[in-house]
C-alpha cells in the first residue's frame, strides 16, 4: 500500500475500533440480557442501539471533575494512556491479505508491549486519585497484570515456534494447513485466561471489583475521563479478540476452503464470535478471590505454559529432524 493509502487505512481502522467499542457497550448489555433472561437496553431506537448515543451524550455533559486532592496531571494522563496503548496495538493486526497498517517482524512483541503499557494507565489512575479504594484497585491491578503478563507472552511462544516468525502476516500464512487452536490448544487456553486478566474484564476484574472497591482504580473518575477508561477496556476486548483470531483461529483465512466471503469478513466474523465468548464468560463466571487469582496464575497457569513450551519445542525439533 502507498503511504497515503496506509494513512487512510490507519484512520479508518481507528474509527472502526472506537466505533466498534462504542457499539460493543450496547451489544454486550443486550447479549448479557439474553443470557440472563432479560432484555437489556431496548428502548431507544431499533433494538435500543441509540442507547450508545444517549450514553455518550450523558458522559459528555457530565461534570468533568478533578478532585482537589488528586495528582492533577497524572490523573488526567492515566485514562489517555490506556486508549492510546490499545489503539496502537491495532497497528499490527492483519485484517486481510496485505491489509494491515504495518507488518513488522516483531509484530507480536509489539502487541504484547502495547497491552503491557495499558497497565500503567490503571496503576497511575489508582495512584493519582489519592483515594484508598483507588489505591487498592491500582495495587491489585499491578500484581495481577504483572503476574499474568509473564505467561501471556510465554503462551504465545508455542505459536511463534511453530510458525517461525513474530510477524503477524507470517503467522496467519503459516496456518494454511491447520489452525493453531488445535496444535496449540493449551496455549490458546492459557492465553485466553491471561488475556481476560490483562484486559481486567469480568471475571478477572479485580482492580475494579465494584462490590468490594466501589469502582477500584476509577472510583474518582467521572465524565469523559471515565469514558476513556471504558473505551480503553472495550478497545482492549476487541484487540484481544483480534489477536486470538489471528494467532489461533487462522486470522483472515477462510475455514473449510469457503473463500466465497472476502478474507476481512471472515476475520470480522471470527473476532465477533470470540467477543461473544468473552461476554459469555462475563455472564457465567463469578469473580474469584484475590489470592485465588494469584495462586491460579503462578501455581497452575505458569507451569502449564512451561509444559506447553517444552512439548511444543520438542515436537518442533523432532519434526525438523524427521
Amino acid at each position, binding site marked *: 500500500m502507498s503511504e497515503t493509502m496506509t494513512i487512510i487505512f490507519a484512520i479508518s481502522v481507528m474509527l472502526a475500533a472506537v466505533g466498534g467499542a462504542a457499539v460493543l457497550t450496547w451489544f454486550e448489555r443486550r447479549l448479557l440480557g439474553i443470557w440472563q*433472561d*432479560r432484555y437489556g437496553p431496548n428502548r431507544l431506537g431499533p433494538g435500543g442501539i441509540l442507547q450508545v448515543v444517549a450514553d455518550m451524550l450523558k458522559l459528555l455533559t457530565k461534570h468533568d471533575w478533578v478532585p482537589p486532592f488528586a495528582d492533577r496531571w497524572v490523573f488526567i494522563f492515566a485514562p489517555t494512556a490506556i486508549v492510546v496503548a490499545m489503539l496502537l496495538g491495532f497497528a499490527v493486526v492483519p485484517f486481510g491479505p496485505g491489509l494491515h497498517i504495518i507488518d513488522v517482524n516483531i509484530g507480536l512483541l509489539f502487541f504484547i508491549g502495547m497491552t503491557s503499557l495499558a497497565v500503567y494507565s490503571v496503576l497511575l489512575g489508582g495512584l493519582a486519585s489519592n483515594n484508598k479504594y483507588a489505591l487498592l484497585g491500582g495495587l491489585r491491578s499491578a500484581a495481577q497484570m504483572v503476574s499474568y503478563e509473564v505467561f501471556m507472552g510465554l503462551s504465545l511462544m508455542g505459536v511463534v515456534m511453530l510458525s517461525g516468525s513474530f510477524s503477524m502476516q507470517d503467522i496467519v500464512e503459516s496456518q494454511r494447513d491447520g489452525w493453531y487452536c488445535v496444535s496449540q490448544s493449551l496455549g490458546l487456553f492459557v492465553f485466553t485466561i491471561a488475556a481476560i486478566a490483562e484486559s481486567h474484564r469480568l471475571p478477572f476484574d479485580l482492580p475494579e471489583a465494584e462490590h468490594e472497591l466501589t469502582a477500584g482504580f476509577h472510583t474518582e473518575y467521572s465524565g469523559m475521563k471515565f469514558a476513556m477508561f471504558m473505551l480503553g477496556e472495550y478497545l482492549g476486548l476487541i484487540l484481544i479478540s483480534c489477536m486470538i483470531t489471528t494467532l489461533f483461529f487462522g486470522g483472515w483465512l477462510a475455514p473449510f476452503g469457503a473463500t466465497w466471503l472476502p478474507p476481512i469478513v471472515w476475520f470480522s466474523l471470527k473476532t465477533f464470535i470470540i467477543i461473544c465468548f468473552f461476554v459469555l464468560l462475563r455472564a457465567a463466571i463469578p469473580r474469584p478471590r484475590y489470592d485465588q487469582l494469584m495462586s491460579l496464575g503462578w501455581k497452575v497457569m505458569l507451569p502449564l505454559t512451561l509444559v506447553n513450551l517444552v512439548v511444543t519445542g520438542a515436537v518442533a525439533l523432532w519434526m525438523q529432524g524427521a
Partner: protein
Amino acid sequence: MNIFSALASQFRTMWRILLHTFTRAETVQYPEQKPYLAPRYRGRIVLTLDPDGDERCVACNLCAAACPPDCIALQQGTREDGRWYPEFFRINFSRCIMCGLCEEACPTNAIQLIPDFEMCEYDRSSMVYEKEHLMIDGPGKYHDYNFYRVAGMEIEGKAKGEAQNEAPPIDVRSLLP
C-alpha cells in the same frame, strides 16, 4: 484432581448459561405491558362507603395509631344523626409504606388498600391526598358490612338493642333482688 473438577464445573456453567439463549426473558415491559396485580395487592388507599351509601369511617383514629410512619391525620366530628365521621382525612402518600396495617386496624372496613401503585407526581405536595381524593363511591372489598348495623351505638333511625344479634338493653335499675 480438584482443579479438573473445578474446570469442568466452569465449563458446565458456561454451557448452561449458553442454553439460556433459547429461553424467554422474564422482563415485564412495564408501561406497555402491565404486571398482574392480585386483588389483595396493597397499593393506593381508598375510603369506602357502606352498602347504604353512607360514610363508613367513624373517625376512631385506630388507623392513625397503627400507621408506622404516622402518615394518616384526621379529625373526628359528629353528625346530627349521631354518626361519627372524619371532618378531614388526610394521607401523606409520600410517607406511606403500603404496609396495610391501617386496613387491619380499621373496625369498620372503611380504609382499604387497592391494586394500584401508579402515583408518580412532580410536586411532592400532590402526594398528600385529602378525603375527597380518597373517597370512592362503593363498599370496596366488603360488600355487606355495615358497622352501625352490628354495633350498639345509638344513631338516628336505630335505637339501642336494634342492631344485629343485639339483645334489648336491660334497665339495670330494675334488677332488684
